[in-house]
């Protein structure tokens, strides 16, 4: 008030471990993009046939940038790069970016640091959809999606729709109601999944592979079918960063700051669920990315959604790209296992350092 008239300059924020990057989000984003480019070259090079990084760069420059480079590589190498490795590494990046931006959105929307893209039943819905697809003895291809991808996508969206509709008829506060309804519907769907797995017999392994998440089935057509969904919905979320920022202080405070809370909640839930559904349809259930990446980004740059959303997209893409490279180097273990093994200790490390620097 009239006392404590200290000026802004005399009391600069405490600068700790993260102090250097906090005010340089563009530098951070740039570093992330460089990491992505390196991952692209590495991801193409790693596999049963190792490909020289120089060849990788030459092939990418030749095929995707139209550069006039003398051809020093074999046609087989080019096929591996262009038809197998490129779609795989790009899918990993797309899915990582999708899960991270959806996680950041769900956390902000539900005002809950423990939220992730799967919290409102999308995971169980997708898993049940995929399991049913495995059990149905028909092979269908719709819009480049196989039956598994198609039913996983529909299952995820159906689950979140049911959760949202049911939660609105409850007498509880909207957020509590959403979380509890999500939990209840998720449990019911998980029971359905268990039943499907019990009945699946020889197809059990196929369902299990989906649950663990992998990019083995990545193709250009699946990548290109999912890309516009994830890209458009992510951009739409980025354009609503202001709403997520308003919600930091609570729903009532957000309303007083000019945000139509009910409408924004509906729109952001729909967009984040769409992004999640598209991601799980092509990759299965990959955990940890959507939970951890937004938190790491917040520790680095603070909670403003204007920074958290785009940097989470870059960070999520990088994390899954490197996780997939490691998974392949380790002999093809499921990528979801790698994200957990990599992500959990890193997250704990960040939390420890955060105590001494940026206060959590």
């Amino acid at each position, binding site marked *: 008030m009239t006392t404590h008239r200290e000026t802004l300059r005399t009391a*600069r924020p405490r600068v700790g471990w993260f102090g250097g990057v906090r005010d340089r989000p563009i530098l951070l984003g740039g570093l992330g993009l460089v990491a992505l480019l390196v991952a692209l070259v590495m991801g193409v090079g790693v596999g049963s046939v190792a490909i020289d990084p120089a060849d990788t760069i030459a092939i990418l420059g030749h095929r995707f940038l139209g550069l006039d480079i003398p051809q020093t590589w074999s046609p087989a190498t080019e096929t591996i790069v262009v038809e197998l490795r490129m779609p795989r590494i790009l899918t990993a990046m797309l899915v990582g970016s999708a899960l991270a931006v959806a996680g950041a959105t769900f956390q902000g929307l539900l005002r809950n640091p423990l939220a992730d893209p799967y919290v409102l039943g999308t995971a169980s819905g997708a898993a049940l959809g995929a399991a049913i697809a495995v059990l149905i003895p028909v092979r269908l291809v719709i819009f480049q999606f196989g039956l598994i991808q198609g039913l996983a996508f529909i299952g995820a969206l159906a689950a979140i729709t049911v959760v949202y509709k049911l939660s609105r008829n409850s007498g509880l506060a909207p957020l509590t109601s959403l979380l509890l309804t999500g939990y209840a519907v998720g449990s019911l769907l998980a029971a359905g999944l268990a039943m499907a797995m019990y009945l699946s017999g020889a197809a059990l392994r196929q369902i299990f592979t989906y649950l663990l998440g992998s990019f083995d089935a990545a193709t250009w057509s699946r990548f290109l079918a999912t890309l516009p969904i994830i890209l458009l919905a992510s951009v739409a979320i980025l354009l609503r960063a202001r709403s997520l920022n*308003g919600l930091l202080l609570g729903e*009532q405070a957000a309303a007083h700051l000019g945000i139509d809370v009910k409408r924004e909640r509906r729109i952001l839930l729909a967009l984040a669920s769409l992004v999640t559904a598209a991601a799980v349809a092509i990759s299965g259930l990959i955990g940890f990315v959507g939970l951890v990446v937004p938190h790491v980004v917040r520790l680095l740059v*603070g909670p403003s959604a204007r920074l958290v959303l785009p940097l989470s997209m870059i960070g999520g893409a990088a994390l899954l790209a490197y996780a997939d490279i490691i998974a392949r180097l380790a002999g093809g273990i499921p990528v979801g296992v790698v994200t957990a093994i990599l992500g959990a200790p890193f997250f704990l490390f960040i939390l420890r350092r955060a105590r001494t620097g940026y206060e959590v």
Partner: protein
Amino acid sequence: MLELDDVTVAYHERRVLIDVSVSVAAGERIALIGPNGAGKSTLLAAASGLLRPLKGEVRLAGDPVRELDRLDIARRMAVVPGEANLPFATRVEDVVALGRLPHEDPFRGARPADRAATAAAIERVGVGHLLGRDARELSLGERQLVLIALAVAQAAPVLVLDEPTVHLDLRHQVGAMELLVDLNERDGTTIIAVLHDLALAAHFFPRLIMLDGGRIVADGLPVDVLSPARILDVFGVDPTFVRLPVSPIG
């Protein structure tokens, strides 16, 4: 600036605000007083469009509130948040900056003018010594000051506060009141504050509105509103417990 015209508000079947009519002119400084459950906060919720009246009309700067969208209302009326229950670590300056959300360019975010308004609000409320700290680790009183700074940064013609002094020590209570007087007299901001401390209300506010049981029971100068008989009647306490300043400022 703000008119409530025969407004009745009900939660489910229970009417908590009954036939309330108030007119607040631009540049007024008003304290709402009354016992718990009298309808003070409900009146504020109706005024800010959060609650839709069962009957009657609320007008803000001439327009019916029900026809304004949230952004229009936020540019006309800043409401100090009742609580800051932050889910993530958030620095004090980032909390105050949220007050600029209604003015921000929706695509580009805060501009230099927004940052200047945020810095000015921090300076004016005197929370500069808290910069860089996580708002979740502040004391209740410090947090209250930060939230007032947020509403000041919002720079709306009407500033609404619901019990802004509950967690403040005596010095900061008086400081907060002086800030409100300054915002009112120097900037012409219309101030509407719910207060429990009748002495503060009488000393710093030229007009008091007393509510009881969802109705306005008195509206006017502190000396008229806070008569011993009315204090006994509305609060049910011996009026000698309430030591009021001899001559309320007018």
